[in-house]
């Protein structure tokens, strides 16, 4: 066993803090539980600030949890946006060190197809070199050997240091570290309004969505890290930010067809990246500007599915005959450039607004734009701004200090192979060294609840007790329960029973189960043909026909945002 970094008791004490205890005053209140908010919370906490993070739903429900899971090398931006590209490669190298258990070092290819201009390859490689991204031109034949799934008709290939990353894990790891350093983090707490006193934001009004309570908390600085929803938060404070929501849809396939990231070597367009993520692979994205009013509607349309498939098979022909298990969509938080009075020009990079300077409103900072990839840097920039206001001079250490689970001496997957069961190994893959905290001393803790993804009773107990799990959707994000090809057909009932038991709320567990199945169905429906439709019919036969769940709960008119 590797050394226990923090004692079990300490960790328990930290995480058993109930959500409903609030301090009255914080140095900084961070709004938004995506990667950026979590990264900012971690950075602030590591610099000794008293931190509160609030999230209206579950952590990583916004753009953080709705992208490719691609750890960009930056190559994709090299031609169009050299600055973003440089940021990406530098963050890429940092994450490989500090977030080992969230990253899989797959490497990537940029391929040229017969319909593409091979001349672009040179432009691309030169741009990569300028940004400091290693880009090796390789022979198409070599590319076919490296990645057998690639379209064999490719005419050119460049190898770059792309990788795959799990944004759910990454966010949780940041939050865990923030909490270990004294931060408080609350999910299901929605900001209803700002407490403003004489051009100064002094705190936020919160709704605890789990019990309906209204609470006011005060902080010296408030950080708006809400991605696309940041425009609304700004409005509450009476300042204006113009966001340009860019919606992107993606498809998840039932298993990995590729083991390297594959990109199209051309100007960014629809469905030109295929990423191997954990046990699946993901093609995306489409890109459509949508009205800000529609950013909460994440339903994927038939047209989006068609485009993704049509373009996706060009990258890897086997996608035409591989089962699709889900479709989902996310919204990129693009921001209007402040220096463009028309508001039409978009800033692609990180945007950090000190509203004192910009709007004459003290105590509010907005951090937005950017990418999941640069969440740490965004956190650093926002924290620098916070510290400047508070007179804190502590240096930023987030680029060097590993996240919990990714410590240097954590065991590697291959060390584990010999000693542990499938479920235990899958858990190590997910939680890194923190998997040591999962109970595995008896047969029941080792029993699998989700067989597709190898999630044990012990892992669920760990997630419920220590990772802020209130419902099955939370549990899925922390553990992958129900993320396999059957999308929770058998495991969700087992998991719901277990949650009901742990939370002493059986009735709630039944409602939760129905909501979870509905959430899974939302992603399956746009691709409900073939085996995915069979899966859905079997799910209906079990939960409605056999169990009568539809008679036990009433879901008419319910649309959960979880």
């Amino acid at each position, binding site marked *: 066993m590797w050394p226990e970094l923090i004692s079990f008791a300490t960790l328990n004490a930290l995480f058993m803090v109930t959500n409903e205890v609030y301090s009255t005053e914080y140095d900084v209140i961070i709004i938004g539980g995506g990667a950026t908010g979590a990264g900012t919370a971690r950075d602030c906490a590591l610099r000794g600030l008293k931190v509160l993070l609030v999230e209206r739903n579950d952590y990583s429900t916004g753009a953080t949890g709705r992208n490719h899971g691609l750890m960009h090398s930056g190559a994709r931006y090299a031609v169009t946006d050299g600055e973003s590209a440089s940021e990406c490669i530098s963050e890429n190298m940092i994450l490989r060190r500090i977030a080992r258990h969230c990253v899989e070092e797959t490497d990537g290819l940029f391929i040229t197809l017969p319909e593409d201009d091979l001349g672009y390859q040179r432009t691309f490689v030169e741009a990569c070199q300028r940004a400091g991204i290693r880009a090796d031109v390789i022979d198409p034949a070599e590319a076919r050997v490296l990645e057998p799934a690639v379209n064999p008709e490719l005419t050119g290939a460049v190898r770059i240091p792309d990788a795959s990353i799990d944004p759910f894990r990454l966010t949780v790891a940041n939050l865990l570290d923030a909490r270990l350093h004294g931060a408080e983090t609350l999910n299901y707490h929605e900001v209803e309004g700002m407490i403003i006193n004489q051009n100064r934001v002094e705190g936020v009004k919160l709704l605890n969505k789990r019990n309906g309570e209204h609470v006011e908390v005060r902080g010296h600085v408030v950080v708006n890290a809400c991605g696309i929803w940041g425009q609304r938060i700004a409005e509450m404070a009476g300042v204006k930010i113009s966001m340009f929501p860019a919606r992107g849809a993606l498809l998840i396939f039932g298993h990995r067809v590729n083991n390297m990231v594959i990109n199209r070597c051309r100007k960014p367009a629809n469905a030109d990246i295929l990423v191997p993520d954990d046990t699946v692979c993901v093609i995306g994205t489409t890109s459509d500007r949508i009205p800000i009013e529609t950013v909460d509607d994440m*339903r994927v349309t*038939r047209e989006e599915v068609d485009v993704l498939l049509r373009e996706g098979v060009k990258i890897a022909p086997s996608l035409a005959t591989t089962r699709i298990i889900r479709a989902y969509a996310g919204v990129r938080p693009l921001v209007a450039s402040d220096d463009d009075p028309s508001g039409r020009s978009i800033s692609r990079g990180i945007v950090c607004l000190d509203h004192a300077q910009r709007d004459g409103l003290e105590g509010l900072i907005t951090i937005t734009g950017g990418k999941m990839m640069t969440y740490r840097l965004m956190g650093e920039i926002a924290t620098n701004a916070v510290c400047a206001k508070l007179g804190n001079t502590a240096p930023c250490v987030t680029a060097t200090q590993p996240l919990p689970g990714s410590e240097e001496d954590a065991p590697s997957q291959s060390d584990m192979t010999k000693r542990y*069961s*499938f*479920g235990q190994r899958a858990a190590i893959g997910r939680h890194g060294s923190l998997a040591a905290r999962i109970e595995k001393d008896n*047969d*029941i803790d*080792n*029993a*699998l*609840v989700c*067989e597709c993804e190898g999630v*044990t*009773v012990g892992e669920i107990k760990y997630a419920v007790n220590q990772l802020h799990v209130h419902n099955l959707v939370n549990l899925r994000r922390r553990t992958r329960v129900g993320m396999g090809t059957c999308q929770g057909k*058998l495991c969700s*009932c*087992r998991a*719901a*029973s*277990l949650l*009901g*038991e742990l939370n002493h709320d*059986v*009735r709630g*567990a*039944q409602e939760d189960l*129905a909501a979870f*199945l*509905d959430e*899974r*169905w*939302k992603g399956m*429906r746009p691709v*409900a*043909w*073939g085996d995915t*439709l*069979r899966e*859905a*019919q*079997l*799910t*209906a*036969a*079990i939960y*409605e*026909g*056999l*169990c*009568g*769940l*539809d*008679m*036990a*709960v009433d*879901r008419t008119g319910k649309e959960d945002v979880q």
Partner: protein
Amino acid sequence: MRMDTVIMGGGLSGLVCGIALAKRGQRVAIVTTGQSTLLFNGGSMELLGCVDGKAVTSPVDAVAALPEEHPYRKIGAERIADLAGQAKSLLSDAGIQMEGTATANHWRVTPMGVAKPAWLTLKSHLRIDDLDKLPCKRLALMCVKGFFDEPNGMLANGLREMGFDVEMIEFTTDDITALRRSPSEMRASSLAKHLLSNSSLQRVADEINRHAGNADVVLLPNVLADEDSYETLQSMVNKPLRQVATLPPAVAGNRMQSLLRHYFQMLGGTYLMGDTAVGGTLDGARLVSITTAKLGDMPLKADEFVLATGSFISRGLVADYERVYEPILDLDVDADADREQWTRFGILEPQAYSRYGVKTDGDLRCIKQGKTIHNLRAIGSVLSGHDAIKMGDGTGVSLLTALAATQSILEK
């Protein structure tokens, strides 16, 4: 190979049809891809459970009000009572002893503690005739430690809402503890295999007798392999013992499937499990033979054919990116052409695809490109015109259409 009748699909409807024909001296072969959805059956048959969201009290009476395209209307509302009686006695001949009547639904209790209308329920299972007059008050719910395919909390909760006093008793025995060493293989079916010997059952009985002192009736998840194990355990326990369905694979369904199959083979029927019908040869309006994946160039010839291949789950129907079709003969189907129409947004809403199936004429004969195939009948879940999940008529349609088709075949 020449048969009198060849049946494609070896689930409930295929087997019952095969048994009914073999009983009358026919040479019958059943070709079936694998095990069927009967393995998800928790021990009850439903004739008609729900119409327009309301529970049906008398299936026989409610049939007349069903829309014309419903399979029950095709075989004739007036025949339902008779066919239902035949079905019950055929099941009993096969060794499946069930209780209930087609004129009055009773309630079965689901793993989640919901009371659902049912027509027949296994004698060894919990059955409630009238929710206003519960058969007993105090229940001891025996919860098998480490067994996750029975949501005991939800079950107990539901039973309490019905008005029972429920005491949940967690127990284990050496056999059960040993089985839990497997992280993945502790299912109802594996428990059933480990609770066969008298000594194993005695250990369970000891736990029940030790803890269930107060109860009127003892409830156990359906983990007893067969009638013998049930009788043996009952004889060791000093209170009435009833089982409740678990999540699949279900022991009761598995047992029903193997009893039906055994009975069919005993009657001389040929059961080709693990083989799949892949195509057929038509001669005008007649089907001459079907080819299967394994018999290869030696097709199965017969006078009559029956399609009992089930719905999407069983791949009797296939949906792809473009359309819904019947994969063996590309028969005409009732289904929406537009993919968007197949499904609805909420998972618990009625789904359009549930009603899809092959088109048939009034005698359940299949249709291809608008023309009736005279010696091919469709039975069971492959039929269009009903939603087994929302109406609670899946097993009933399987049994009754199987028997109706049998009569048509024998009358020829």
